[in-house]
């Protein structure tokens, strides 16, 4: 039984397996299938300052070894989270981290401030891939300046562990990670979804109401691994890796590439108990290879 404990900033995780925002609801959806207390943490559905209806249906299309989604951050707003959801989930024995989204800096800051008050939420994940309404819809996350600006503002307002989630739809994810590190982020998580599109040849229509959407699942794993490896080589803060992890072997690949923790996203839809199985699989791998700690394989790629 190897030591699976890891730290991200000030925060300790009983193991490095967490679940990705938007794929795990608020955890409650999974209690029929698994014991939430057995995983390292849960990233909640993206939460915004106000209620959002999200995009029109259809919001999903299956693609080769993956899926596109266009949920569009449907959520009831941070106040509803605080009043109605937080009380139900706060006592799980796992780290519950709120994924904070917004379209303006003020929204991000206001949401982060509210979450900062919640005793049992030790960290937020800043999703900087949402469109920046003020700057004409480009997302904050695709330029160093945009990413730095939003992180700087939130860092001032939020005192606990701040994780910034990076968009892969960029020329140079490393410099964005560095910009975010420079502004005081405690960790970066990557990748968010790749922007993609699907068309029904027979009806000549896009499958999504929004035409384009976010690609996730095993198809994106090679891109995610590459970005995690590039970023982990460069920044000093811990990297949380995700993108297409379907089993323990995939997770190990991310650790070798330099991730300190991983998130499981789309895989939860296919096997709602997968995250617990991945914890077990990592443990088995470490034992089999004679490692005593997960840290023995973090960044241990022989390249």
């Amino acid at each position, binding site marked *: 039984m190897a030591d699976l404990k890891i730290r991200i900033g000030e925060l300790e995780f009983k193991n490095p397996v967490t679940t990705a925002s938007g794929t795990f609801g608020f955890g409650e*959806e999974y209690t029929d299938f698994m014991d939430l207390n057995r995983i390292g943490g849960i990233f909640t559905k993206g939460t915004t300052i106000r209620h959002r209806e*999200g995009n029109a249906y259809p*919001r*999903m299309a*299956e693609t080769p070894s993956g*899926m596109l989604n266009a949920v569009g951050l449907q959520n009831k707003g941070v106040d509803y989270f605080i009043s109605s959801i937080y009380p139900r989930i706060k006592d799980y024995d796992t780290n519950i981290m709120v994924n904070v989204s917004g379209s303006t800096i003020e929204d991000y800051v206001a949401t982060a401030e509210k979450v900062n008050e919640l005793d049992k939420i030790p960290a937020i994940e800043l999703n900087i891939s949402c469109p920046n309404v003020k700057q004409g819809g480009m997302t904050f996350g695709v330029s160093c300046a945009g990413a730095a600006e939003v992180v700087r503002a939130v860092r001032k307002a939020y005192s606990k562990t701040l994780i910034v989630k990076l968009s892969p739809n960029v020329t140079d994810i490393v410099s964005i990670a560095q910009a975010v590190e420079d502004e005081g982020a405690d960790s970066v998580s990557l990748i968010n979804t790749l922007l993609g599109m699907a068309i029904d040849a027979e009806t000549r229509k896009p499958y999504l109401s929004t035409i384009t959407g976010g690609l996730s699942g095993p198809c994106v794993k090679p891109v995610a691994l590459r970005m995690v490896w590039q970023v982990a080589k460069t920044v000093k803060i811990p990297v949380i890796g995700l993108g297409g992890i379907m089993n323990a072997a995939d997770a190990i690949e991310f650790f070798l590439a330099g991730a300190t923790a991983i998130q499981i996203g789309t895989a939860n839809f296919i096997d709602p108990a997968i995250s617990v199985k991945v914890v077990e699989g990592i443990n088995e791998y470490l034992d089999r290879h004679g490692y005593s700690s997960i840290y023995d394989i973090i960044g241990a790629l022989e390249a």
Partner: protein
Amino acid sequence: MVVSANIPLGSSHFLLKFTHKEKLPEMLPGQFVQVRVDNAPGVFLRRPISVNFVDKQRNELWLLVQKVGEGTRKMSEYKTGDVVNMLLPLGNSFTMPQSTQSRLLLVGGGVGIAPLLYMGSLLKQQGCNPMFLLGARSADGLMQIDDFKQFGDVFITTEDGSAGEKGFVTQHSILQQHIDKIYTCGPTPMMQAVARFAQNNAIECEASLENKMACGFGACLCCVTQTQSGHKCVCSEGPVFNTKELSWQI
């Protein structure tokens, strides 16, 4: 779940029967299962299929399936003894009528008849006398008629008139009679026409929707339908909705 039978019904439908070594959990009418389709390279997500019937004595679950793409085609090849991974039961259910005296009409189109068989069986068991109105393109597309007849009177429409009355379900003469409540499942345009009829005649109407799903249990928010109170998940807040609740332009 282990396949105990795979019975072709016409060229494009088939009935799968499954048994389980443990006792099947309680399943409600209108609920569905999420089938993991293995060995099909184009199929990444699970496939939602309605509970067609539950035979408690035999500990048996039936799924009535139409071949539309790679997933359902793969399912059509299942053989007795194959082990299939599924999540179940998922979703809400049709609601039982206030009184066994209610005049209940179950309206199904195409493979949408699937959940109505189980619903009909439970209604019958509780002392109701449900009527079934089943529509298809042609006689060839009618399935499980003898099964339905065990639980109530069956009325039929086909678009080409090859069986029952010619036309759409909403044109059937049975609709002239007094009805207290309608349960419907089928193609969306059909369900909308049924909902319109129900609205115009002040009849309670519940419809079972078939939106595209990723998870099937409320986690991804992909399967929403627009309702009077905003987007709702068809998988966890449905698939059954009172049609008054839906934002259908009818």
